[in-house]
């Protein structure tokens, strides 16, 4: 009997209307699932197209001022750059950055990159070359370009000095002060200033600090083979100026100074970070860098 039933069953099974209906529904469900998931993932395009995912990126990021596609593509979203940064400047972007999720960025006002690792540790840590290894020295970096956004708020422009903690007692940002600790950055709040005229953006600029070091080294040594080797390697010493203070005469007898961003600016954001005015008088623009400024 069972022998007779089996072939009948086998023929019937795929034919039952109920099964047919079930598989039709399953197919529909699966199509909706596919469309839904792919649709959701493609929503990641929206912030990219709108440009809302554009951010200040760590040194060496594979990007042009207005196109971060290569950077998103090459980044494996692992955060190894986050882990090596001594000032903890690097964060990973969240869901609202769409395709930029998990990609590192820097919020300069909160904590800028002050190159206190010296060797561009984030670049060395990057496993995919999203932070390109073509970059060897801080002065080669092209993160953005600083701009005095609110000249009227600038203390130096008003001829004012600055006394106290640059960003208040509660500010948790770090900077390296070589005269205090060559190797370890300390909280900005533990390093109060007393300045006759505010020059924090120039004083703390990593490029300007480097220039001072180079000049000091040069005056100490009469013959300078080391510096020449460094120059050949692309580590120009001193590098080009990034920001300078220039006297400003408004004819009212007040000593005023104007911070002027120079072509050596790498856009690291330390000036934006340290500016004691709320909100910062000087900011880093993303749509420019030293190269594009030199071209135009």
């Amino acid at each position, binding site marked *: 009997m069972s022998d007779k039933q089996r072939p009948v069953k086998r023929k019937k099974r795929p034919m039952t209307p109920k099964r047919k209906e079930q598989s039709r529904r399953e197919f529909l469900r*699966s199509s909706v699932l596919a469309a839904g998931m792919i649709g959701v993932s493609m929503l990641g395009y929206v912030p990219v197209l709108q440009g809302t995912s554009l951010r200040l990126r760590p040194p060496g990021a594979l990007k042009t001022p207005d196109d971060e596609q290569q950077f998103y*593509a090459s980044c494996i979203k692992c*955060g190894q750059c986050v*882990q090596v940064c001594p000032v903890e400047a690097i964060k*990973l972007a*969240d869901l609202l950055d769409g*395709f930029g999720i998990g990609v590192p960025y820097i919020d300069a006002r909160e904590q800028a990159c002050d190159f206190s690792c010296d060797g561009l540790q984030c670049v060395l840590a990057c*496993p995919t070359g999203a932070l390109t290894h073509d970059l060897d020295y801080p002065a080669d970096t092209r993160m953005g370009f600083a701009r005095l956004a609110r000249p009227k708020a600038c203390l130096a422009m008003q001829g004012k000095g600055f006394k106290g903690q640059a960003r208040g007692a509660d500010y948790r940002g770090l900077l390296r002060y070589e005269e205090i600790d060559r190797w370890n950055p300390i909280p900005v709040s533990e390093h109060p200033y007393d300045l006759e005229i505010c020059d924090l953006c120039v004083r703390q600029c990593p490029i300007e600090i480097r220039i001072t070091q180079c000049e000091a080294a040069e005056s100490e040594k009469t013959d300078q083979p080391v510096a020449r080797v460094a120059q050949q390697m692309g580590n120009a010493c001193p590098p080009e100026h990034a920001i300078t203070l220039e006297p400003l005469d408004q004819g009212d007898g007040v000593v005023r100074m104007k911070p002027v961003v120079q072509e050596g600016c790498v856009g690291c954001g330390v000036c934006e970070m340290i500016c004691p005015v709320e909100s910062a008088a000087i900011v880093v623009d993303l749509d420019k860098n030293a190269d594009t400024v030199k071209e135009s």
Partner: protein
Amino acid sequence: MSYIKDSIAHLIGNKIPRPSKQQQSAEVQAIYAGKKGKLSKADVEAVRHAHKSTFLSKWQKRRWATLIMVNLLFVASFYFDVQLVEGALTGARVMGFHFADLNAALQVVLAYKHIVLNLVIGIVTVFLMWLLLGGRTFCSWVCPYHLLSEWAEYLHLWLVKKRLIKNHTFNRKVRIVFYLVFALLALVTGYTVFETISPTGILSRALIYGPGLALVWVGLLLLFEIFYSRRAWCRYVCPIGVTYGAVGLLSPVRVKYNAEACHHEGDCRKVCLVPHVLELTIRSGARDVNQDVSSDCTRCGMCVDVCPTDSLTYEVKGLSKMLK
């Protein structure tokens, strides 16, 4: 060879037809014939009850411990700054040596269309590691989403038992469609599209670098699995599983099925994340007395734990012969 054939069929979502008599060995046919009429319901039930299955069984305990340990290693390494395991599950450096998740690396290579040496090293290392350890072993022994999903599954099964909800299945072919579409999207758009929604990457980063809004997406996935479709992400969507499943094609670490003592009661298929790989445990479903479970298996060991007759066991191909 048939292992590879079966595995590919399962990975692309095909159903493997039951073997015909010609495809079965004489030994296994004899075993099936010998069981006819011998397995009374009462006997089977007795053995089932004698086999104590606890909530946290042997392999599950080991697996959860391993999964939590591996993920905590990432967290602790960063928290205490010991640089033991740097990075996240998508890409890491273990004591200075590069590791790259194969699927994340694939997305990067397709989107970026360029590959640096460090990434090659990371890919080769991880490929060799999972080749030795079983491929989809990554899923059940490492992936943090798997653990959350496992917990959600208990909730789902409870709700189904209470008849509050119904499970909805999808066509398993949809997973390979996802795989191809996400690969194509990376290639065409130049963005790592899948990474945007990958709960593995999101969870790993959230654990290490702190929680974010992206966890809402993971929560939605879990809700979908609890109320609508059991283990939907791992079963029907995740390309990471397909990638590691492909690695498992060549891996010696497998789950082996022995038809001799099997009662064919199907307890293993009830606990399995990918029950189609266990269809060979259905009566006259195996081609031979001993047959390996295909590489779509995540080597989680739930079936090994639940099997009342020890018909399913872990094996390391070649090694067990050497030990004998």
